[in-house]
C-alpha cells in the first residue's frame, strides 16, 4: 500500500469454529475474496475485493460467514466522509472516471414515500377483489381522433393505431443482452409472455433463441443501433427509441470488447473483441424534427403495425421535451427517473444528473393535458418503482403503466452490490462468464419474476378495491386518490396533489 490507503467498505467475518475449510466460498466468489492458506491450513479473505454481494454467505454450508460494514474509519469528518476520501484516493491513483452500476444510492427525497393513498368509507363502498371483478388490463398507444361508421351506421373499429395490450400495467424495462446474461434475458422473456406483458431488449439486439417471444418483446433502437435490422424490428411488439436513460442522462454507453464474444458479438452484429460504443446522442437526431423522421422511418419499415416508444431520461425540462415527442408521431413516451439502474455509468453522472420520476411524470402528464394531447400518447414511468404501492401512485399521478428493472433483477437474485460494471456478477445476472451465467437457472428466474409481478398485481387490486375503483383506467391520473405528507407547497404543486388533511 502506498500513500492512498483505501479502507475497504466491507469486512468478511469468518467463524473459525464453524468453517470446515470446504473452500466452497473460494469457488463461489468471482472477485477472489476467499483463498486457502496452505501454511495455516485455514481460509483467509481479502476485504478490499469484497463488494458485499453475499454469494458466499448464502452458499456457506457451515453458516460460518458474515459480511459487515467495515467499522474502521478515517478520522470522523462530516464533510470528508470515508467514501469521499476513498474516491479521491482512487482517482489520484488512476486518473480515471469513477464507474458504478445500478441506481443512484444517495439519500435524495423519495417522493413515493411522501404520498399516501385513499380508501373508501361509508359514502362509497370499497370493492372486494375476491368477490368482484377487478381489472388491471390496459392498452398503450395513440387513440384515434375521428370516429368512423360503416354504411349501416355501426362504429368502425379498424381505425385504431397499433397498441400494446397489457394484462397488468407493469413492463420489464430495457436491459441489454451483454449487460445482463442469456439466462437473465430468457427469464424475462418467458415471464413477460406468461404474465401478458412485455420485456425490452435494451440496446443489445435480440438473440436468435428469443425471436419466439417476439409478441411480448419490445425491441430497442438506441444510438449505437446494435443488432438493428429489418427482421429484428419486425420481431417485436413495439419499437423503443432510446434517447436517454435515468441512470446516465446525456451520455451513451460502453460495453468493453472483452464482453463482445460469441453470441453477444453475433447478436449485436459487431466483430468479436470490438468495443460497443453507443454515442451520447443519436447521430441522426440533432433536434426534434430529426426524431420525427426516425419515428416515421421505423413506422415505414414495419408497415405502421408497431407502436413506437420514445424513452427519455427525466431531466429538468422533461415536460416540454415530452410535449415535443408527443407531436413527433411517437405512440408511447417512457420517462426514466434519476434512480433508474444501469450496468455501468460514471458515478458522478449517476448520482447527480436528472430528477425524480415522481415529479417528472406529474409534470409531463400535466403538460400533455394542458396542451390537449394526452390522448395522443401513453406514458410509461420508470426508474425507482420498488413495489406495488409505487405502481399505484405512479398511475394515480398520470402514468399508464410502469417499467421495472431493478426490482426484476432483485427477483432474479441480484443483491444490489452495484458492481455490474466488473462483469463478475456472482449471481449470474450481470455477467457473460459461462461459469457464472449458469448459476442463474432460467426456470427459477422465470418463476420468481412471475411470482413477483403476480404478487404486485394482487396488491394493486386490493388497493384499488379499497378506493372503490374496479378498473385501472379509473385510477390513471386520479390524483385525488393521493395526499402528500411532509411536502412543501411547491412540491405539492408540481405533483398536483393536496396535502393530507386537506
Amino acid at each position, binding site marked *: 500500500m502506498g500513500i492512498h490507503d483505501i479502507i475497504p467498505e466491507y469486512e468478511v467475518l469468518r467463524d473459525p469454529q464453524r468453517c470446515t475449510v470446504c473452500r466452497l466460498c473460494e469457488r463461489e466468489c468471482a472477485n477472489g475474496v476467499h483463498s486457502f492458506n496452505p501454511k495455516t491450513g485455514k481460509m483467509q479473505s481479502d476485504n478490499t475485493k469484497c463488494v458485499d454481494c453475499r454469494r458466499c454467505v448464502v452458499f456457506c454450508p457451515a453458516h460460518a460467514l458474515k459480511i459487515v460494514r467495515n467499522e474502521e474509519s478515517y478520522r470522523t469528518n462530516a464533510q470528508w466522509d470515508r467514501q469521499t476520501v476513498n474516491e479521491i484516493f482512487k482517482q489520484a491513483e488512476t486518473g480515471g472516471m469513477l464507474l458504478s452500476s445500478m441506481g443512484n444510492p444517495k439519500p435524495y427525497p423519495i417522493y413515493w414515500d411522501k404520498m399516501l393513498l385513499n380508501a373508501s368509507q361509508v359514502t*362509497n363502498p370499497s370493492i372486494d377483489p375476491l368477490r368482484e*371483478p377487478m381489472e388491471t388490463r390496459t392498452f398503450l398507444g395513440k387513440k384515434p381522433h375521428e*370516429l368512423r361508421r360503416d354504411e349501416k351506421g355501426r362504429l368502425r373499429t379498424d381505425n*385504431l393505431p397499433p397498441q400494446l395490450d397489457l394484462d397488468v400495467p407493469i413492463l420489464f424495462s430495457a436491459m441489454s443482452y451483454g449487460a445482463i446474461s442469456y439466462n437473465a434475458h430468457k427469464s424475462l422473456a418467458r415471464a413477460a409472455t406468461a404474465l401478458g406483458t412485455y420485456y425490452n431488449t435494451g440496446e443489445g439486439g435480440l438473440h436468435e433463441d428469443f425471436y419466439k417471444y417476439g409478441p411480448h418483446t419490445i425491441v430497442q433502437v438506441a444510438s449505437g443501433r446494435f443488432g438493428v435490422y429489418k427482421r429484428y424490428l419486425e420481431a417485436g411488439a413495439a419499437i423503443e427509441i432510446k434517447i436517454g436513460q435515468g441512470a446516465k442522462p446525456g451520455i451513451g454507453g460502453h460495453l468493453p470488447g472483452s464482453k463482445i464474444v460469441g453470441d453477444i458479438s453475433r447478436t449485436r452484429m459487431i466483430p468479436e473483441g470490438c468495443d460497443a460504443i453507443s454515442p451520447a446522442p443519436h447521430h441522426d437526431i440533432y433536434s426534434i424534427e430529426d426524431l420525427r423522421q426516425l419515428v416515421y422511418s421505423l413506422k415505414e419499415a414495419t408497415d405502421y403495425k408497431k407502436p413506437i416508444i420514445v424513452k427519455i431520461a427525466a431531466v429538468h425540462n422533461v415536460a416540454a421535451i415530452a410535449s415535443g415527442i408527443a407531436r413527433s408521431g411517437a405512440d408511447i413516451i417512457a420517462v426514466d427517473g434519476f434512480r433508474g439502474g444501469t450496468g455501468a455509468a460514471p458515478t458522478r453522472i449517476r448520482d447527480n444528473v436528472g430528477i425524480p420520476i415522481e415529479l417528472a411524470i406529474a409534470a409531463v402528464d400535466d403538460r400533455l*393535458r394542458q396542451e390537449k394531447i394526452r390522448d395522443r400518447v401513453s406514458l410509461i414511468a420508470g426508474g425507482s418503482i420498488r413495489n406495488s404501492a409505487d405502481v399505484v401512485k405512479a398511475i394515480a399521478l398520470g402514468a399508464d403503466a410502469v417499467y421495472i428493472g431493478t426490482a426484476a433483477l432483485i427477483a432474479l437474485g441480484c443483491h444490489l452490490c452495484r458492481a455490474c460494471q466488473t462483469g463478475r456478477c456472482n449471481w449470474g445476472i450481470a455477467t457473460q462468464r459461462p461459469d457464472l451465467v449458469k448459476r442463474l437457472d432460467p426456470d427459477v428466474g422465470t418463476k420468481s419474476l412471475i411470482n413477483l409481478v403476480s404478487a404486485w398485481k394482487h396488491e394493486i387490486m386490493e388497493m384499488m378495491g379499497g378506493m372503490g375503483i374496479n*378498473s385501472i383506467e*379509473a385510477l*390513471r391520473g386520479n*390524483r385525488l386518490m393521493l395526499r402528500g405528507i411532509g411536502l412543501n407547497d411547491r412540491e405539492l404543486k408540481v405533483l398536483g396533489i393536496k396535502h393530507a388533511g386537506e
Partner: protein
Amino acid sequence: MRDRSNGLGGGFAAYGIYPKQKDLYALHVFYGSRRAKDECERIIHASFDISVAERIPTRRVPGITDAPAVWRYFGLPFPKLLEAADIDEREFVVRFVMKVNTEVQGAYVFSSGKNMGVFKAVGFPEEVGRFYRLEDYEGYCWTAHGRYPTNTPGWWGGAHPFALLNYSVVHNGEISSYDANRRFIEMHGYRCTLLTDTEVIAYIIDYLNRRRGLSLKETADVVAAPFWKEIAAMPKEKRGYYTYLRNVFSSLLITGPFSILVGFAGGMMALNDRLKLRSMVVGEKGDTVYVASEECAVRTVEPDLDRLWSPRGGEPVIITLDKGVKV
C-alpha cells in the same frame, strides 16, 4: 322519500314546459348579488338575442331560506358571433355557460336547454317544488332528486339535476373515478367548478353524445362498460366493439356506485354502474314509465303498475316519446 335526503338540496328537470318558446334557449340563472346580475346580463345581452327576461315565479316556503335571485332568459345566440367563432349554436352555448360559471363571481347558469328547465334549491324536494310553483308547468318528462351531500357543502348550484344544453343528470351515488374523469374532460374545454361527480357525468355525456357523436347506448357502453371477462365471452363483432370503446375512451369509464337519470330532448336514459352498487328499478303503466332508486318511490306515484323490473348493472334503459308525438 324524505328519509333518503337531508334537506341540503332538491331539484327537478322538466321537459316540454316552454312550448311557446320551444325554439329558444331557456337560460336559468342564480344571482348572489346585484353586481353579479349586472355583469352576467352584460354577457348575456352581448351573446344572445333575448326575447324574454324575467324572474322565475316563486313563492315563500318555510323550509327554503337565503334564496338567491332566480332569473330566466329566452333567446338565441347572435348568428354573426357563431360565424365569427366558426362554431355551432350548441357549442356556443356551452362556452357561454362555462364562461359565466367560472368567471362571473356570484352568477351561476344552471339550465341552458330548449323547451326544458331545471328548478333546484337547498331544501327538501317537495319544498323546492312548492317554491318554484311547479304545479303551473306541464311537461312530458320529469326527473327529481333529493340530496344527501357527501363531498361538497349544500348550496343552490350544487343541487341536482345538473344540466347543460338539453341534457340533465340526476345522480345517486359517489363515483370513485371522479378525478380521472375530470382531468380528461377538462382537457376538452369543460371546467368542473362544483367538485361534484354529477357535474362531470353531465359533461361526459355532452362530450360523447354531442361532440363525439356517439349514441346514448354507445355512451352508456363507455361509462358503464362491461367487464373484460364478459367481453371475452362475446361473439367477435361485439367483442371488437366493446374492446374498441374501452380502449379509445378508457378515461371516461365511471367506477363506483351510481344510478343516474339522463334527461334529453324527447326522452330519458336510466343507467346503473356496472356492478349495480346502487339500486334502480323501472316501472311501467300504460305509456308512462317510472324510474327510481327504490321501488317504494315508484309505488307512491303509481301503486298499480303493469310491470316492474330491475335493469342489470351497466345496461341502459332508454325511454323515448312515441313516434309522431309533438311536444
